[in-house]
């Protein structure tokens, strides 16, 4: 992976296995290979999208970068610092720079705290304000996400889904982070509200010079918001390239199938498209296939795909792909 000091995040050979235990001795019998050796970087001020189907490891990847899990192996560098080597205290300070927003804003907001105290809590935890400043900051944050300062006395249930997502965002912004992992932030919202939140995220990124890792299963949304997009399949990165390139020139057979499965909301365009059908389901991350993880469902698989893992390499113009056929 190219070392470039403009990279805010660098992930090298990240592996995250979760043990499967059995019996009263909690003997380990297998591993869920949630993330199985991936490498990528996120540049300063960039939005990197991660897409893939349920269980492909995109959420786990995001959580590993925030060190919410102790990784199995690999290296994660944030702002030049190897975060796996940090102790608790150092990590707590580091977290001020990295925040997370969730899919279900309701589940991630304490129902017994007012909006103001939810947003203000990180300010106090990180000792960023004192006294009178606190109220002003909370009001400022609410305005930033297009809510009204008077709403600070309300409780989460008094907000709509879209407004709760704005609250979650305000809480994340409270500590003035450099980097936000957005994990399916619009998936639970109405179509008309999705556009509001996407537009807000784009505006805040511009104004506050943020860097995003945007995780979602909706390819159209991910492509719209991201500068580059990585496509994951069963714990590995299949392809990673600029967002426009991904639709114009997808190289991995999985990316091609995934794109063709997404219907375009315009019958004049969609009904002209060539369809690639994928058969079967994604295999279990415990019993992963040998070689390329995608080979049992791939229409162009060869013998080599069955036993050798294709290297994830740059084929030019920052277009990375892991496929023997490329």
């Amino acid at each position: 992976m190219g070392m470039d000091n403009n990279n805010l995040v660098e992930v090298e050979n990240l592996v995250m296995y979760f043990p499967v235990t059995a019996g009263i001795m909690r003997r380990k019998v297998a591993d869920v290979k949630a993330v199985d050796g991936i490498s990528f970087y996120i540049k300063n001020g960039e939005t990197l999208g991660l897409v893939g189907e349920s269980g492909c490891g995109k959420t786990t990847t995001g959580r590993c970068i925030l060190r919410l899990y102790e990784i199995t192996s690999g290296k994660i560098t944030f702002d030049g610092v190897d975060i796996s080597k940090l102790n608790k205290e150092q990590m707590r300070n580091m977290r001020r720079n990295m925040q997370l927003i969730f899919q279900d804003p309701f589940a991630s907001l304490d129902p017994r705290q007012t909006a103001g105290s939810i947003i203000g809590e990180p300010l106090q935890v990180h000792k960023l304000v004192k006294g009178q400043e606190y109220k002003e900051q909370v009001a400022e944050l609410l305005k930033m996400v297009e809510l009204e300062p008077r709403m600070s006395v309300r409780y989460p249930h008094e907000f709509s889904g879209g407004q709760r997502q704005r609250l979650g965002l305000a809480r994340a912004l409270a500590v003035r982070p450099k980097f936000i992992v957005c994990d399916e932030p619009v998936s639970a919202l109405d179509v008309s509200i999705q556009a509001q939140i996407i537009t807000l995220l784009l505006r805040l990124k511009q104004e506050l010079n943020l860097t995003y890792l945007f995780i979602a299963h909706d390819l159209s949304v991910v492509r719209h918001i991201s500068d580059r997009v990585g496509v994951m399949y069963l714990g590995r990165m299949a392809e990673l390239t600029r967002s426009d390139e991904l639709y114009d020139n997808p190289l991995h057979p999985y990316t091609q199938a995934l794109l063709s499965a997404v219907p375009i909301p315009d019958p004049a365009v969609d009904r002209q498209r060539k369809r690639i059908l994928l058969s079967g389901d994604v295999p279990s991350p415990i019993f992963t296939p040998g070689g390329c993880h995608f080979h049992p469902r791939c229409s162009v698989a060869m013998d080599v795909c069955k036993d050798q893992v294709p290297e994830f390499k740059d084929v030019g113009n920052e277009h990375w792909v892991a496929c023997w056929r490329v």
Partner: protein
Amino acid sequence: MRLIPYPPGVIMGGEVIFKGRDLLAISEAEIRKIRGDEIAMVFQEPTTSLNPLFSIKTQLSESLILHRDMDKEGAAEESVKLLKQVGIPDAERRVNNYPHQFSGGMQQRIMIAMALTCNPDLLIADEPTTSVDVTVQAQLLDIIDRLRTEYGTAVIIITHNLGVIARYVDRVNVMYAGRLVESGETGALFAQPMHPYTMGLLSSVPRLDLPRKHELFVIGGQPPNLARIPPGCAFHPRCQFAIDRCRQEIPELEEITDGRHSACFRSRELPELVGK
């Protein structure tokens, strides 16, 4: 389907005509015969619709024995055939499995198979792919579409996914706050929406095929609270074209051009308004 529990739900009026009969006027016994037999339904959450205690064979057979007078052996054979039709591999063995042994996509296939047990004339699919991945969504909707062409089953797809509509349906009805606001043939409706809500909806979703830097249109405000629907046109507080009349009068759904209906006072001048 008359599946809304009473109380609290009350059908206040209207007619539901199915094959010439008003479903709201017939007895509970008669509607039971139609349900699952002539009209079948596929729900959003297959996990909550399948009984975890019975094998797939038992659950499919129940309806076959009840509605199609089959014996146990015949029903078992038919169950395998149905599973094959919805693309479940190794159907002979899998028919003996229980719901938890299938993935979400496979469970939804079983739901479709169950809906098909009686060759319904009408299949209502309520957000059938909301909880599945996009490649599985394509598989499931392709199956429904194939069955529609093979057996001539009429299908109602209820969804919020505009892509699904564009790809699979012939005619669209757009609803807002409990009312139909626009209807028309899919191609025509997408090419030129006649209601500001439809128009806003279509331009607020990101599209894979458009240049990435285009800005999304944002419909402001919140979806209405159904207990407090705004007076006049329910969409007026979020509508950029609203005039005084919209705040006072409820617009009726009326034919604007051939086969195109819209419930908006300004539908006829909308193309011009948008041009400005």
